[in-house]
């Protein structure tokens, strides 16, 4: 077993999703190599080399990969795989990994697996299907390579280790040539990364979601205020999105974002199946609703049967009182 982990990095560190992917790769046994792509990746490569269990760090350090679109990076991955023949290739199940890995897999004539949540052995894995309403255990075919993406909330981050210093190898220009020269047909125009003070819905430790019972877009401000107090993000049920209270990208559920924060507070959300599918892996769930029979209470650790227009301001005051 030899695994290549495709890394995402920001500045001088690997991303959190990549650290979880390394932990999943470790569960396979065998040697782990990490591949970093972009320009001036040495600081992040050094970070990778200090992580527990890394055998080798490969860098494709070239301007051509700095704004690398999936077309070019998939070609690179194929070139690296053809020369080095890893048994497994893993990537985080981030927008980066989900965009790139299937493209590379098709070029290698391999059927990849998405969103792995458990490694049983080097060929047997578990992943959620139907938005986590069922768990599928599956086996890869005997011939590799086996490509998969990893759901980061299912694996802890790989720790640094003082004694660890994996070798860093710069991939030769010859090996990079085909990917560098590829006529991709895709041009990177720009990126608008959210500058919001609020954390991103997908990775926030606290998520407060509102349902149709909020009654209006204005009333969602109550939730923003509480979220800001707790350093959290705000989500919404599909019903609230359909009613026009908030935009689509706030939707938590089977057809929206799947979240698993430490604390999820569902406010005026009835708990339709498609909403539960998007949040039921949260560590602690709080439901606030006037109807004691609604299904959200069946998944909640703490339920509060109360009018949300009284409960939310009171909750804000009480949290402030006890000091968060």
């Amino acid at each position, binding site marked *: 077993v030899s695994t290549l982990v495709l890394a995402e990095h920001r500045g001088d560190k690997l991303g959190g999703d990549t650290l979880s992917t390394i932990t999943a790769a470790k569960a396979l046994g065998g040697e782990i190599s990490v591949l970093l792509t972009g320009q001036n990746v040495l600081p992040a490569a050094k970070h990778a080399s200090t992580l527990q269990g890394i055998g080798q760090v490969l860098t494709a350090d070239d301007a051509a990969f700095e704004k690398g679109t999936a077309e070019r990076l998939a070609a690179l991955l194929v070139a690296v795989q053809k020369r080095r023949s890893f048994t497994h290739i893993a990537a985080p199940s981030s927008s980066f990994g*989900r965009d790139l890995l299937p493209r590379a897999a*098709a070029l290698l004539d391999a059927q990849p697996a998405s969103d792995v949540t458990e490694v049983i052995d080097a060929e047997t894995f578990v992943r*959620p299907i*139907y938005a986590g309403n069922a768990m599928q255990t599956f086996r890869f075919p005997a011939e590799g390579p086996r490509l998969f993406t990893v759901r980061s909330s299912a694996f802890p981050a790989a720790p640094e280790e003082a004694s660890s210093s994996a070798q860093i190898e710069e991939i030769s220009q010859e090996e990079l040539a085909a990917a560098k020269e590829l006529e*991709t047909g895709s041009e990177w125009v720009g990126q608008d990364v959210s500058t919001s003070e609020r954390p991103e819905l997908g990775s926030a430790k606290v998520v407060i979601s509102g349902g149709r019972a909020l009654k209006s877009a204005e009333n969602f401000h109550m939730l923003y205020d509480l979220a800001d107090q707790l350093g959290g993000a705000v989500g919404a049920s599909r019903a609230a999105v359909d009613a026009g209270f908030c935009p689509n990208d706030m939707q938590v559920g089977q057809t929206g974002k799947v979240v698993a924060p430490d604390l999820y507070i569902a406010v005026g959300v009835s708990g339709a199946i498609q909403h539960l599918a998007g949040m039921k892996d949260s560590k602690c769930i709080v439901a606030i609703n006037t109807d004691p029979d609604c299904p959200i209470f069946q998944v909640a650790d*703490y339920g509060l049967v109360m009018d949300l227009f009284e409960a939310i301001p009171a909750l804000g005051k009480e949290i402030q009182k006890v000091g968060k």
Partner: protein
Amino acid sequence: MKRILVAVKRVIDYNARIRVKADKSGVETTNVKMSMNPFCEIAVEEALRLKEKKLAEEVVAVSLGPKACQDQIRTAMAMGADRGIHVLTDTELQPLAVAKLLAKIAERESPDMFMLGKQAIDDDCNQTGQMLAALLSWPQATFASKVEVEAGDERRAVVTREVDGGLQTLRLRLPAVVTTDLRLNEPRYATLPNIMKAKKKPIQQLTPQDLGVDMAPRLQTVKVEEPLKRKGGIIVSSVEELVDKLRNEAKVL
């Protein structure tokens, strides 16, 4: 653009309850309401809007699978697609096989754009569009939240994508593959007259043999199980009690 192909998948309706089969071989699909995958509906809608802006001449809906998939092709045609293509097969299709079949259809139809939902809500793979683009050596824009086609002879599309933490914009040479995310649009409902009209629109039926594709599943399902159930919680009587529990019992505040 002359033609947009749109892939539509038949899946268990997003509102239906998912029941795992007793023998753990999969999920129960008999007597369960089936619908078009919601992300595919968004893809159909976007293709129709491009056509309505006179940026495309024809929209063709493609589905693969058993005979009943024609329902979803009819739905796409009732929304406004001009015709349909159905590849009839009862074999389990995994994304690589789907991508290979769609690539063959693309070779026959020469579309300027192939639109797909970013993922299907049954297997949640989120792979087919990327794999199709790879097999055709076309550029790809996944998770699209805005699609614009540039006028003129240059044949380019500018696509805004939902990426972690924000938005990214790509400019693609056509033909290209675009996969759709939730924010792109709100699909229309088919009206009764259009449902009636759709019955007269043509569906071309093909077999995998016509297309000469190896469809054998690569991943083997060992078992499908219910996820771990959450333990039942408690009802608290006041905001004060809730905050106390969150601080001292759950330790999340």
